């Protein structure tokens, strides 16, 4: 059986529901929430685990940082039969009152990445699938978690648009703050655009690890892990709901 070029995964080795973290190092931790998790492949920045949840097959596949590798992961997963995706990752707050550790659910993204532009002109909107987004919101509500839903900014140059960027960054990107953009990350725009073009469903859930106004940054892994656990549980609950709706 031919394996997908970069992921090194064959058909039948991933579930229809996939969690997409950026960091390969997070896959093992996320897979611990699956029943019978097994490492399927580890190639470049793409680490794949597959297991079960409530009787259906789920996977976690890291995308690496940025839209170029995220697009590759998504494209190859689609050819392998995956249909529902949730990007699960971290983000930096552009909105002043977003606090470290809070949860953002993106319903759309400003697309200044290069990858999605190769697919389709910029005026095409990067929009999350509304069923996945609704399922994530509902699962969060059920857990009593307050979330922020809205538009985020996906871009390519981390050191031009992050807490580590030059001090002029906030002034340069004032238009995004004025437009009410919640936060910034590096993968969702291409994932949303490609998903619409390929007719699969993708949403995004993120936790705030930096605030660009206070320049506060969360690096304490001890504090971050429970938040990743929580977001993974929200994903799995959302997948469960989507799986039921699909059969219904």
């Amino acid at each position, binding site marked *: 059986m031919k394996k997908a070029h970069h992921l090194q995964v064959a058909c039948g080795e991933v579930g229809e529901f996939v969690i997409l973290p950026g960091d390969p190092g997070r896959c093992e931790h996320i897979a611990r929430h699956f029943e019978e998790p097994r490492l399927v492949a580890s190639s470049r920045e793409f680490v794949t685990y597959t297991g079960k949840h409530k009787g259906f097959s789920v996977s976690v596949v890291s995308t690496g940082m940025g839209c170029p590798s995220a697009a590759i992961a998504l494209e190859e997963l689609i050819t392998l039969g995956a249909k529902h995706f949730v990007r699960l990752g971290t983000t930096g707050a552009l909105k002043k009152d977003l606090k470290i550790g809070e949860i953002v659910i993106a319903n759309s993204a400003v697309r200044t990445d290069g990858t999605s532009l190769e697919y*389709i002109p*910029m005026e095409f909107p990067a929009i999350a699938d509304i069923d996945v987004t609704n399922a994530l919101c509902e699962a969060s509500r059920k857990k009593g978690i307050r979330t922020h839903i809205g538009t985020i900014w996906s871009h390519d140059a981390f050191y031009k648009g992050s807490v580590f960027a030059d001090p002029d960054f906030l002034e340069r990107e004032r238009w995004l703050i004025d437009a009410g953009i919640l936060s910034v990350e590096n993968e969702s725009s291409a994932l949303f655009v490609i998903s619409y073009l390929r007719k699969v469903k993708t949403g995004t859930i993120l936790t705030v690890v930096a605030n660009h106004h206070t320049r506060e940054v969360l690096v304490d892994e001890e504090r971050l892990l429970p938040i990743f656990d929580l977001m993974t549980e929200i994903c799995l609950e959302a997948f469960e709901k989507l799986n039921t709706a699909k059969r219904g």
Partner: protein
Amino acid sequence: MEQIQYHIKCRKGEVNRAVLLPGDPGRADYIAENFFTNPRKVAANREFRIYNGEFEGEPIAVCSTGIGCMSSAVAIEELANIGCQYFIRVGTAGSLQAEVKPGEIVIATGAVRGDGASREYIDPSYPAVADFSAVNALRRRAEKEGRPYHLGIIRSHDAFYMESPFAFGDFRKRIQLWVEAGVLAIENESSTLFVVGSLRKVQVGSILVIAGSLISGEEAEYERIKGSVDLAIKIAAGALVDLLKGESEK
């Protein structure tokens, strides 16, 4: 005395906060006369015809935008200035997909920003996305009516005679990119309404009835789609009622 808005000729408090936005001024009359209880004309200037009324006992309004994003932006800006908060565009569109047929209903999740007006507001990388609660409210109402609908991205643009069944030359070549992208339908107002809505922090949704197909070239007689237009108006007005009620529950 609050300042009168330059084009719509209304003041703060004069227009109910939840507003249907048809393109055609004639459709504003039609909606007020046939769907509102106790309709009252508030103003009529240029292409902006405004009525207040009640739907299911809740105060709503209708304001026509005229054709195109230019006048639509004027309408929503001035309505937002005087305190309007919820907007549903209800109109017609041309199909870009073989399976989206004349008389069928489309609920837009977002729009390709092929218009000029929204670019003056913000870079084209910013998404024209429909308000999340408005889309959910429209879906729930359509489901309640037992009416199937298409859900997805539409294209809004400015030059009707470049991309329509009436366009000159090979219009199919011009729309091919969007057809292949799975864009459902094409019209002339939603992109700017979504963008200006997001920037002004008001909620905007859009429900459209397919009047013709750019794929088959078919143009439906109005009589054939009239029932669908009536249903779309009912769904849109119902969604506004739900948005108002959701607000009071918060």
